[in-house]
């Protein structure tokens, strides 16, 4: 087991299997089809993301460098949370970007009954170490354990 220390963007504790991308995560491209057409697994629809395309995201610990793309990204993430179709948590190796931060904050302030912990600045080593399927536990204070 390896432990990483990050910064809490939105709080919460959760344990979930990892899905990992080392490429920018395009939130709109990843979620749009799955949310619109009721994909229960919420499979990633971003054709440009070679790591995630076609993989289920719901209930997973989404490990990524940053999000990219359309500025609808934040509200798409907010909708995913409001519809209970969100990843279990989002774990960023670097500093969070403005769209992901907006989505995390909007969900935290405006959605009742959903917790999606978001931690950033976990370091490049985190993304190099974590692999799909590894069990991840997000603890208080931005501590992330990878089994």
């Amino acid at each position, binding site marked *: 087991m390896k432990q990483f220390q990050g910064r809490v963007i939105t709080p919460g504790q959760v344990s979930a299997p990892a899905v990992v991308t080392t490429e920018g995560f395009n939130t709109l491209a990843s979620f749009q089809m799955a949310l619109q057409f009721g994909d229960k697994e919420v499979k990633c629809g971003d054709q440009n993301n070679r790591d995630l395309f076609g993989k289920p995201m719901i209930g997973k610990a989404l490990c990524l460098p940053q999000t990219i793309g359309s*500025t609808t990204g934040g509200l798409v993430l907010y909708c995913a949370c409001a519809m209970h179709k969100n990843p279990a948590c989002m774990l960023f190796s670097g500093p969070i970007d403005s769209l992901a931060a907006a989505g995390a904050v909007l969900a935290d302030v405006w959605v009742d009954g959903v917790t999606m912990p978001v931690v950033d600045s976990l370091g490049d080593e985190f993304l190099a170490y974590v692999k799909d399927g590894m069990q991840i536990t997000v603890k208080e204070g931005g501590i992330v354990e990878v089994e």
Partner: protein
Amino acid sequence: MILTQEQQAILNGEKGETLAKVMKTLVMYGDAFGAEKLVPITSKYNHLVTSFGLKVMSPVYDLMQQLLDAGVFSGQKFSVDPRPLDKNVPANFLQNFVFKNFMYTKQEFYEGQLQKLGLLDDDAFTCTCYMDEVGNKPEEGEVLSWAESSAVVYANSVLGARCNRNSGIIDIMGSIVGYVPYFGLLTDEGRKATWVVRVETSKMPEAQLLGSAIGMKVMEDVPYIIGLDRFIGTELDGKTTAYLKDFGAATASNGAVGLYHIANLTPEAKRLGESLIVEGAKEYVIDDAELARVQAEYPVMWKKEDATPNLCFVGCPHLSYEQLVEWTVNIEKGLQESGKKKVQIPTVLTAAPKVLEAFNASEYAPRLKATGVITSYICPLMYMNNPLCKKMPVITSSNKLRTYTTARYYRSEEILEIITKGAK
């Protein structure tokens, strides 16, 4: 974050619970970036990204309704991204049925909400609100609360305004309280370039291909681009700003660029030159081979890779008046060369309603119509965003549309060849 007395009072709920939640959202958003204060928005108008009444986005409309019910309105009038539907654009019976009865069932309701919240006017639906015909064009140095990635990168880079890549909903929340958190692209430090991009191509690179290459490489960083002025000049005229509009849209959708500087051309690069480049900036050289590599690596999402295209979209982001004229002339010329009278594939050119109004009053409108091309104010991305269109072999010169849909990207000269001579 240090708040003024007025801001703190709003956060404390002295002006109501809903406004307090709006302020809390902005404060938490700013805190994520270490913002120490909120600064006033100084632009005349705002621009919002959410223009579509998609049934699945109900949480957004519920939130908007909370704002309206609490009497919380935007302090600024705003424009908004293009409408998702237009009867002029070819769609079969099934598509129309799905659009109207399943997908965009909230369109009318949401447009009603937008009007109450502060929509500029009924024609203010475009991603290129900064066109002269539309009139939402901020001045250099103005602070904005805009969303829409292509508009934000244009406002920052070409107009010299200051705006972060705000998400939808955050955009309107800024103009409700009148402030935005001070971080990132609002600061002098955040506008410095951490990449130097050297353009060493043998001819003018296609704007949306060059933007794609740079976006995928630098992600959300600020690039300082050297060598592009050899091809597009040192003045921000209509042709150059249209190029930069398309270039920027690709950097923002294929990556997350919110600001770029073009040596000897864009306002800050002209004023501050290479002092904008931070020490230790990374370097990326783009030549003909690199552009060819980038284009060759785009995945083809069609079921049959050699299918004959049955629809072509040009204008994501929306075309300028000058671009509509240029496409008209080029299509006429292409048809003349191929000995054909009409385009060989249904083709839609999209532009802002007010740009189309100006174009329709010109001598070019009947000439374009004679070629069989359709004009529309639609958002091609929203049109394509469903399983029915996913099956269609659609071609486009937009790298943004390629990124979000199954549309296949071709450079403008390739598009022209296909639509005027037919697909091989």
